[in-house]
């Protein structure tokens, strides 16, 4: 029986309760969203004691399911004002899964607003909350280093340890603050980045969560032989599909830079062009060449059980670790969107974001807006580094920049602010790639590419093809992918498995076979999609209660009015089509008995 671990930061009491039967089929995002819907008042102050930070491994967390170690972190978002699930790699999800923990709910807030704590989970099941003022103001990497030192002195450290930490931006409750999660080597370089959840953690007075899993075994399965067979089937698909077996492990996610640029959808200089003349310098191919030459690692998984291995480390000229190989989104946001074509500068900016503890997408979109204001120039990496330093120091300027793209654009009078539901747009312009515009506009998360990754069919010819330049078929494409993605997030699977799942029927079968063999419950394709729909229903209704209407499911006007070169197109999907994406919610809500 999985359990909920409830941590009350007002009293520092930790209690355990069985996972309610009604959520027995939920994990990951399904669980974080159901809990936030059920326990957080929609009108709550996101940084007040009524909000709750919910941390959940997927249903397959703690098992050997390939790519099954993703972590969901949920709350009401201080950035969007709606529900949020930020998804991260790293080793924490499997550790929690092995402990039998379905979710950690962190609620309340310390009466002493300056108090700073660490939450620690030990393999024998004990949990404590301890004061950690020595960590105040430290960057994410230093926080982990100091915490490891303390734990080592108390003989608790081992290689089997995971940390979730916030940087100074989270302590200062900035809206672009994320939560860093350590990877298999203990680097805090994986992020539940989006939506300001680091600020929610900071508002709870929590700097650090440490999870020690030494000696814990993977979870038992209802039918071990069937589970192993399903794992082999799934793994076979992932290691066969060209994307998941070749492109991603060789070049990482940033292999996308050239193809999105070629398609004319690579947002450049605050979304003013769809092609960047300096793309080669910040592409996945260039990153690989530089890293190989310097002797850096160019292929590993961000969590144990990953068979895709798209992670890599970026190293300096002397071969020393700088940061993770910047992901496609980060290389774009801190590169092309700022007019920066130098991979070393992108890596410096990425590392700086990692230290301060802010979302690299929001940071790069903010910098693009800041540059568009004329305060600093496009292409000026040193000025961008200084701007990030302002955030880390919490200066008056830094507090504006740290609240993200919209706050910065309003402050400096920028006309084109690329946000939906107050969250910065990721690395695909919605004018020449219309399907992703539907996802940005309608997602419960605010502008989010992962929520319904239509780039598959729009650009990459994965899962069929839908012409990216035309409005036809985009709403249906986005709806299907939003449902499927919510399901993958609930299972705890990496969304990159979708590239294989969309093209190979046996991969989708393997997911419900793993779920059934692990839990002993009945699972099939319909049940998987129902799980996705239920997750979205909780989120959509929470957002309605929080005040969102159809008017919030729209792109900023400039995407409908200003043509983007080189295709010279605007976004043309109609409001009616956008409003059709969540047409399934009333029926599902009625089934769930929620309103």
């Amino acid at each position: 029986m999985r359990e909920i671990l409830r941590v009350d930061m007002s009293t520092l009491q930790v209690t355990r309760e069985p996972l309610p039967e009604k959520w027995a089929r939920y994990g990951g995002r399904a669980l974080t969203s159901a809990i936030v819907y059920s326990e957080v008042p929609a009108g709550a102050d996101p940084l007040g004691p009524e909000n709750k930070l919910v941390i959940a491994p997927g249903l397959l967390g703690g098992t050997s399911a390939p790519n099954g170690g993703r972590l969901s972190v949920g709350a009401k978002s201080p950035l969007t004002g709606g529900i949020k699930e930020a998804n991260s790699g790293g080793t924490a999800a499997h550790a929690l899964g092995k402990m039998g923990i379905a979710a950690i709910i962190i609620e309340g807030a310390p009466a002493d607003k300056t108090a700073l704590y660490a939450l620690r989970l030990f393999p024998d099941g004990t949990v404590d909350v301890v004061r950690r003022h020595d960590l105040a103001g430290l960057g994410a990497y230093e926080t982990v280093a100091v915490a490891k030192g303390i734990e080592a002195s108390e003989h608790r450290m081992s290689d089997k340890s995971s940390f979730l930490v916030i940087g100074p931006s989270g302590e200062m409750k900035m809206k672009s603050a994320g939560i860093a999660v350590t990877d298999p080597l203990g680097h805090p370089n994986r992020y539940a980045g989006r939506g300001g959840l680091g600020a929610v953690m900071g508002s709870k007075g929590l700097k650090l969560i440490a999870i020690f899993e030494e000696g814990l075994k993977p979870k038992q399965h209802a039918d071990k032989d069937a589970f192993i067979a399903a794992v082999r089937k799934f793994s076979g698909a992932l290691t066969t599909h060209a994307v998941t077996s070749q492109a991603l492990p060789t070049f990482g996610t940033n292999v996308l830079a050239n193809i999105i640029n070629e398609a004319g959808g690579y947002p450049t200089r605050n979304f003013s062009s769809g092609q960047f003349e300096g793309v080669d310098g910040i592409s996945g191919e260039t990153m690989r060449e530089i890293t190989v030459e310097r002797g850096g690692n160019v292929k590993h998984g961000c969590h144990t059980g990953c068979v895709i291995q798209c992670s890599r480390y970026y190293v300096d000229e002397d071969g020393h670790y700088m940061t993770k190989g910047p992901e496609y989104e980060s290389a774009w946001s801190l590169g092309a969107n700022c007019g920066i074509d130098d991979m070393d500068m992108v890596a410096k900016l990425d590392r700086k974001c990692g230290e301060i503890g802010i979302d690299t997408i929001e940071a790069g979109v903010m910098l693009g807006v800041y540059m568009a204001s004329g305060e600093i120039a496009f292409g000026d990496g040193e000025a961008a580094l200084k701007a990030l330093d302002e955030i880390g120091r919490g200066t008056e300027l830094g507090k504006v920049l740290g609240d993200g793209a919209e706050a910065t654009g309003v402050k400096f009078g920028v006309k084109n602010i690329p946000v939906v539901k107050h969250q910065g747009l990721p690395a695909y312009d919605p004018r020449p790639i219309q399907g992703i515009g539907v996802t940005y506009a309608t997602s419960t998360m605010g502008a989010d590419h992962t929520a319904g990754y239509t780039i598959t069919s729009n650009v990459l010819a994965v899962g069929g093809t839908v012409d990216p330049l035309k409005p036809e078929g985009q709403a249906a494409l986005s709806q299907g992918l939003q449902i499927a993605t919510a399901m993958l997030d609930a299972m705890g699977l990496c969304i990159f498995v979708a590239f294989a799942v969309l093209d190979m029927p046996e991969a989708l079968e393997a997911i419900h076979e793993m779920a059934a063999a692990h839990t002993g419950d009945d699972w099939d394709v319909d049940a998987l999609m129902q799980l996705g729909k239920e997750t979205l229903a909780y989120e959509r209704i929470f957002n309605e209660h929080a005040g969102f209407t159809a008017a919030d499911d729209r792109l900023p006007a400039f995407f409908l009015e200003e043509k983007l070169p080189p295709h010279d197109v605007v976004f043309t999907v109609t409001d009616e089509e956008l409003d059709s994406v969540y047409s399934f919610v009333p029926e599902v809500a009625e089934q769930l008995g929620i309103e």
Partner: protein
Amino acid sequence: MRVDVVLFAHFSGFQPDGKGGRHARAFEFEEGTTIADVIAMLGLPDEPRVIFVNSTHAPEEQELRDGDRLAIFPPVAGG
């Protein structure tokens, strides 16, 4: 006619000058040359490809025109 050909990811090693890299090479082709003809000439591996002519998806049977930019990718994805 003259066509710029650019190859990405592991296809970049198939440029006939043997230098690899992703910079466009200019080729002279007969009128009526199709994308499939270019793929055969380059000897690209027989696997799915994503092809753009002047930043728009193009089928392999499409005839090229003077001044076109032809970009060919192996299956890639990320996010």
